[in-house]
């Protein structure tokens, strides 16, 4: 068969399907390609589970039951302890202790000698340098 006919078949196999009946060379190529595709079955179930599969599913019954159960337990415990739920939340969210510690540390630094100021400045510089170095690393995440 001529090369022109083979090229026409290569460009549009469906339009020139009759070419396979007369050209043995093209028939061999077609058979080889069909065999390669046919012998590679894709089993979706065997592929590893991606983190985003079904991730947007919203399990409202579970969420509502869980949240209401915790709320009921919190109410019961607050009732037993003799405090209101709001009071318990405000008490828990208070950062007074941390604030006090930092204020005490700042006051102590203000009264400290020059050497302590230098030491604090050195620590501050060192820690923030390490922080910047660690932040320069690109996240691994989904590429891992």
């Amino acid at each position: 068969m001529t090369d022109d006919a083979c090229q026409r078949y290569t460009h549009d196999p469906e339009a020139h399907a009759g070419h396979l009946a007369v050209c043995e060379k093209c028939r061999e190529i077609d058979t080889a390609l069909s065999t390669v595709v046919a012998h590679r079955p894709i089993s979706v179930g065997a592929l590893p589970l991606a983190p985003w599969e079904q991730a947007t599913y919203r399990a409202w019954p579970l969420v509502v039951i869980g949240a209401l159960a915790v709320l009921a337990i919190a109410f019961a415990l607050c009732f037993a302890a003799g405090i209101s739920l709001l009071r318990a939340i405000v008490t828990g969210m208070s950062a007074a202790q941390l604030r006090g510690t930092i204020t005490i540390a700042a006051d102590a630094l203000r009264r400290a000698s020059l050497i302590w100021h230098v030491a604090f400045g050195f620590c501050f510089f060192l820690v923030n340098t390490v922080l910047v170095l660690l932040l320069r690393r690109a996240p691994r995440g989904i590429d891992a």
Partner: protein
Amino acid sequence: MRKGLLVTAILAATAVTATVAAPSLQMPLGPGSLSAAASMMTRTAVIVSLLFVWIVAALAVTLASGREVRYSSIELRSAPLHCFALGLVTVTSFVLTAILFSYLIPYLVGLPLLIALGLFAFLAKIYGMIAVFHAIGTLVAGARSRDDLAQRRWLRGDLAMVLIGVLLLGAIRLIPIAGTVVWSIASVFGIGVALATKFGRREPWFLTWRAAEA
């Protein structure tokens, strides 16, 4: 060289963080008296009430930006040591910077800087803890295969994983002393992963300078 630096940074930051975040030794160790029992009951009520707030916040953030939380959770599971090291250094940096800004309060500039730092630390902690909840929930109750996932009715999706994580960590937090330590470690992981992934956006914090090519 870099590994040595990392290990040194971890050791130094662990010492500072442990000193700052260690639970108070004055807390009641057991219900030895009526007042100690009442104190423990109040403490439990406060923790469980806060747990409800955490659930509401976690669900709201997961609904608003589930993909970011998921990315951070993946990062936490794939590079836990880096997240922990970054968290330790960040907490140390927060404390030192807060002391510096408190020092500057008499010069007026300190107060707005301190407020900005507090806000940033608060957001990092909230977002990071939600990523930790998601990571724990996925590790404990996540589907292992596609068939397993297909059989599940409710226990799938970001919301369910976050809820499982909150409930699990919240239950652990109720344990005296150990619970506080575990929660503090989770906070360090959370702050670390929040900064490592730039709040789940996976963008670089610093632009790299490169010479223009002709």
